[in-house]
């Protein structure tokens, strides 16, 4: 378990990839929020959030993603979610937010979605 934020900036496609790890709950969502804000400041064309290492997310995590979506729309950044695990998908479903987001299966799809 490292506590460092993993951010890969794939310069080729102009896409930033954020890959949070662990559970995103009340105690951890603020750190993800900050990481998203930092990336937004660089105005990438595309922000890919890879959730494949996130086994659990509660409403604070979802709120963080909704906020990111709103910021990305304002800044004309394409936001794509990839690697949504089952519990995280349930949380999106029960809050009826699945359709709000562009969700794809693989990182490759995320560059084209």
């Amino acid at each position, binding site marked *: 378990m490292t506590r460092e934020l993993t951010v890969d900036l794939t310069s080729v496609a102009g896409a930033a990839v954020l890959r949070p790890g662990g559970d995103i709950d*009340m105690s951890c969502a603020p750190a993800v929020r900050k990481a998203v804000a930092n990336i937004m400041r660089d105005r990438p064309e595309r922000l890919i959030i890879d959730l494949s290492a996130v086994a659990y997310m509660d409403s*604070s995590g979802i709120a963080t993603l909704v906020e990111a979506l709103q910021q990305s729309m304002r800044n004309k950044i394409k936001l794509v979610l990839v690697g949504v695990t089952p519990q995280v998908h349930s949380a999106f479903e*029960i809050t009826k937010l699945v359709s709000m987001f562009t969700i794809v299966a693989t990182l490759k799809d995320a560059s084209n979605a």
Partner: protein
Amino acid sequence: MDREPCISVRLFSDPKLLSPIRAFVDGLSKSIGFSEKSRGLLSLAVDEALANVIRHGYSERTDGLIWLNIWRLHEPAGLRIVLEDLGRSVDPTLIKGRNLADVRPGGLGVHIIKETMTESKWEMRPGGGMRLTLVKLLAPEERENSSPTQSENCTP
């Protein structure tokens, strides 16, 4: 309520304790026969309820007391969890999920709790604070997995 709760937990209003409590709720609901999906939602609902107590009841203080009293239910099979705190008391009618059409961050916890649980009831606790009663019954297809006599966590 049948007899005494099978498990009582007392914890502080510390967000760091959310993760172990989720693991515990997941393990307990597994032993009762809930499907993996139901278990994920149950852990989520309890997490949201605790997060609300920490955030709204105790204004993010980490030294507030929270009690979880837990019953296994039989016929119909399921789980009852009663959360109590000594934090701010609010009129239960003010605790409502927001309109999901209004997309904004926040305001999802109560919606998640109500959608997930078979029953959810907020009350002001007589001695101060709030009491939240949560009940989730097994779905018909989950009932086959639940056997009151045999041990639930193994397929010997």
